[in-house]
């Protein structure tokens, strides 16, 4: 775009405001190229207020300046897509005029500083992204990463984050249906907190965050504006260090009670048809919400910051524009509607305050007590941030790791399974999800603890399945295969319940993109994600990029969390993950090649993260999904559970152990002779090839299942039979046999995390 100055943008420094010096520019995380563009665009030196506005909108978080070109490679189209990337949330079509809006967002840096509030406000933000679209939130999920639990600080962060996620979602009244938690050294000092929200709406009620109609009024609805989180957006766009500690923004405190009122008021405003547009105030608060709404509508806006209700006296326009106070929305409406809008808000005990209007001059203009303190060409403010395509190069160490093998010295399979089930990465997350209300809204049919959560849409027969997945260990070793694997696992989890995958949202958590090895991970992971989404016809409907997840100890493992939504036409045909009845046949779907590269087996038992992860066979994954979906539709399966971390044996054990509230564990009598006979036992039992699932069915249905699998070209092996309570979990291979007591395994699996978290409050 030509960098000619736009005539007539003049602005005055706010009284007492610092002069814009090179130091000040640097403090605002703007480099010379960027600052040069700003000066050229304005034809003058920006005021401090304007500099703050640019630094927020041109931060990585708002501008995607290092990720845009890569994100453009994602498939985003399909007959089911109502709204693709670019809005607050993606929207997919459901039967009977319904649609589902969903989105995932990170709140990593705030959670590292203050785990409880950081996580809570993360949930608040993602809820607003969804109800901003006119959708009622019906499900929450969360993906969490911490350093190992033997470090007190990590336990403190883990406990605080879980409490924060729970308290916020519980209070607003949205069930948390799933998620994942991982622990690895790379996350010490830089935990990841990704929250996903899923909402339901009538397709005709969809509203977009657009400012239109010159003369229309801008209103702030909800909480007063304080000095919270000023520069949160740019804070989220730098590495955590001593320096960033010093400039840490004032902690944002969440108020889920106000959020619930804001949710009800917003949905009432939207369905009343009385508003033109609505947008939540997230990162960079009033600045990004107003500038982005204007840009989408191709109009200008004028705001008077002295009209914004503040929590503290003496706030400057700079502070008001950049505040990240929570529980606020920006609404655009015709002047004649303002009275009615205020009335609706008052009913919900909220205030709606006009603070500006839509203009025809395309400028983002800010006044304070009548003085113009910022005047910036709106479109270019949002779109002219330089885009970077950093150099990418794989780290030598990673190449070496892929070629490496673990120290010799085997572990008996019996002990191996017991230790894997006790590993926090694999053990039950019940300690977590019991702190989350998973049944509010009375529509949950499959809650946490299985492969995916499923809710029924009230008044219909169909349900939606939701999951959030990423195995970062695979990405650390091979970002391309790992990216495919993340989508494949999400799709497997959806399909296990009988639902058909519809589309994804993603939260791309990486280190500093200016480091070639990090940008390589990012680019390759996205290539893998894009290919998998093509293969499964699950378009990307939106997401979020979180770079600079680094602490003095280095970058986090590449963690592109995949949030997926699926549709099950007849929710009564849903399939649970755990064995259901004694005497059922146990069938293994998919082929086992015994690949231990990047496996939990090596990581947890040999403390070795290395080897080459299994190459993901997208066709095999897709075929497996088809078998799982068709088998549920034909009511063939009693249970279906996919193989992920820990491989076949962990999947079998989890299915036998039973769900979190099963009265008792079941046994199984299995004979693997004839299944991967050429493989070493640890590869057979604990290898992590994808495209596999453990299903059970009534004995008289075995033939139909094998026929179905054959039709779809999916290997199907009858491993044995589900045994009653008290019976062992027995696995034979040739002559040898291994036996476990399912009751003991159940105790290990469910007690692993509580045992480590028992009354632990240390913060240091």
């Amino acid at each position: 775009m030509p960098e000619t100055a736009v005539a007539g943008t003049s602005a005055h420094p706010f009284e007492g405001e610092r002069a814009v010096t090179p130091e000040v520019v640097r403090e605002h995380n703007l480099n010379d190229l960027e600052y040069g563009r700003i000066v050229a665009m304005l034809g003058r030196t920006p005021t401090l207020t304007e500099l703050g506005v640019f630094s927020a909108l041109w931060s990585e978080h708002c501008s995607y300046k290092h990720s845009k070109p890569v994100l453009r490679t994602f498939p985003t189209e399909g007959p089911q897509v109502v709204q693709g990337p670019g809005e607050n949330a993606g929207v997919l079509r459901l039967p009977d005029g319904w649609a589902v809006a969903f989105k995932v967002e990170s709140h990593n840096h705030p959670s590292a500083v203050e785990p409880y509030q950081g996580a809570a406000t993360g949930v608040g933000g993602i809820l607003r992204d969804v109800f901003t679209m006119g959708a009622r939130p019906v499900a929450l999920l969360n993906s969490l990463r911490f350093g190992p639990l033997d470090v007190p600080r990590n336990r403190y962060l883990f406990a605080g984050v879980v409490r924060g996620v729970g308290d916020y979602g519980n209070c607003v009244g949205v069930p948390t249906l799933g998620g994942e938690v991982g622990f690895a050294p790379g996350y010490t000092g830089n935990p990841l907190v990704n929250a996903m929200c899923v909402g339901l709406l009538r397709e005709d009620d969809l509203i977009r965050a657009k400012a239109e109609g010159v003369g229309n009024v801008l209103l702030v609805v909800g909480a007063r504006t304080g000095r919270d989180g000023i520069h949160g957006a740019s804070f989220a766009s730098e590495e955590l260090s001593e320096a960033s500690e010093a400039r840490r923004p004032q902690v944002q405190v969440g108020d889920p009670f106000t959020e619930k009122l804001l949710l009800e008021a917003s949905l009432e405003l939207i369905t009343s048809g009385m508003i033109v547009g609505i947008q939540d105030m997230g990162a960079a608060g009033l600045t990004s919400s107003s500038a982005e709404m204007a840009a989408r509508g191709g109009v200008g806006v004028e705001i008077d910051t002295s009209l914004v209700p503040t929590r503290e006296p003496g706030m400057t326009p700079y502070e008001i524009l950049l505040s990240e106070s929570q529980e606020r929305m920006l609404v655009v409406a015709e002047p004649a509607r303002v009275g009615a809008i205020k009335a609706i808000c008052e009913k919900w005990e909220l205030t709606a305050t006009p603070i500006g209007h839509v203009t025809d001059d395309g400028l983002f203009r800010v006044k304070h007590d009548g003085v113009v303190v910022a005047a910036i060409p709106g479109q270019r403010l949002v779109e002219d941030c330089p885009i970077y395509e950093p150099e990418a190069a794989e780290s030598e160490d990673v190449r070496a790791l892929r070629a490496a093998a673990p120290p010799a010295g085997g572990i008996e399979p019996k002990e191996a399974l017991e230790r894997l089930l006790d590993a926090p990465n694999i053990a039950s997350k019940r300690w977590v999800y019991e702190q989350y209300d998973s049944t509010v809204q009375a529509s949950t049919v499959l809650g946490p603890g299985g492969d995916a959560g499923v809710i029924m849409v009230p008044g219909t027969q169909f349900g939606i399945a939701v999951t959030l997945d990423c195995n970062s260990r695979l990405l650390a070793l091979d970002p391309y295969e790992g990216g495919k694997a993340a989508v494949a696992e999400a799709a497997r989890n959806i399909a296990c319940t009988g639902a058909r995958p519809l589309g994804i949202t993603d939260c791309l958590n990486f280190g500093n993109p200016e480091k070639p090895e990090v940008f390589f991970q990012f680019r390759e992971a996205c290539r893998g994600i894009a290919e998998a989404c093509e293969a499964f016809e699950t378009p990307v409907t939106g997401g979020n990029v979180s770079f600079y997840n680094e602490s003095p100890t280095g970058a986090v493992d590449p963690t592109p969390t995949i949030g997926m939504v699926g549709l099950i036409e007849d929710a009564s045909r849903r399939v649970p993950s755990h064995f259901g009845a004694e005497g059922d046949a146990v069938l293994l779907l998919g082929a086992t090649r015994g690949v231990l590269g990047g496996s939990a087996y090596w990581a947890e038992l040999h403390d070795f993260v290395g080897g080459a992860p299994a190459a993901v066979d997208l066709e095999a994954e897709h075929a497996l999904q088809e078998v799982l979906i068709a088998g549920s539709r034909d009511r063939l399966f009693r249970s279906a559970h996919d193989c992920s971390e820990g491989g076949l044996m962990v999947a079998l054990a989890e299915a036998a152990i039973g769900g979190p509230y099963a009265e008792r564990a079941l046994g199984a009598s299995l004979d693997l002779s004839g299944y991967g006979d050429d493989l070493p036992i640890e590869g057979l039992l604990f290898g992590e090839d994808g495209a596999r699932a453990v299903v059970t069915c009534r004995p008289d249905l075995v033939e139909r299942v094998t026929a179905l699998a054959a039709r779809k070209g999916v290997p199907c092996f009858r491993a044995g039979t589900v045994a009653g309570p008290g019976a062992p979990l027995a696995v034979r291979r040739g002559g040898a046999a291994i036996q476990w007591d399912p009751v003991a395994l159940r105790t290990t699996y469910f007690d692993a995390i509580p045992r480590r978290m028992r009354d632990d409050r240390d913060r240091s």
Partner: protein
Amino acid sequence: MTYRVHVRVMPRGGLLDPQGQAVEHALSSLGFGGARDVRIGRAIELELDAPGPGEAEQRAREMCDRLLANPVTEDYELEVEAR
């Protein structure tokens, strides 16, 4: 000597205090309109032995810094009372 320590942990000034806000609102609708600037925090009481009041306070401060108060969001005040 045995000392009784009273700790008052309050949300840091400037930070939103939704609880205080809600209570202020409730008080005024109960006819206590006059109540302003309501803040809600935690009151902690404990007993400890120390050679003298100075040491007792010292120990109590360490407890606050380490566990009782959240340095990112809260401020605290102490009173030490001999038993």
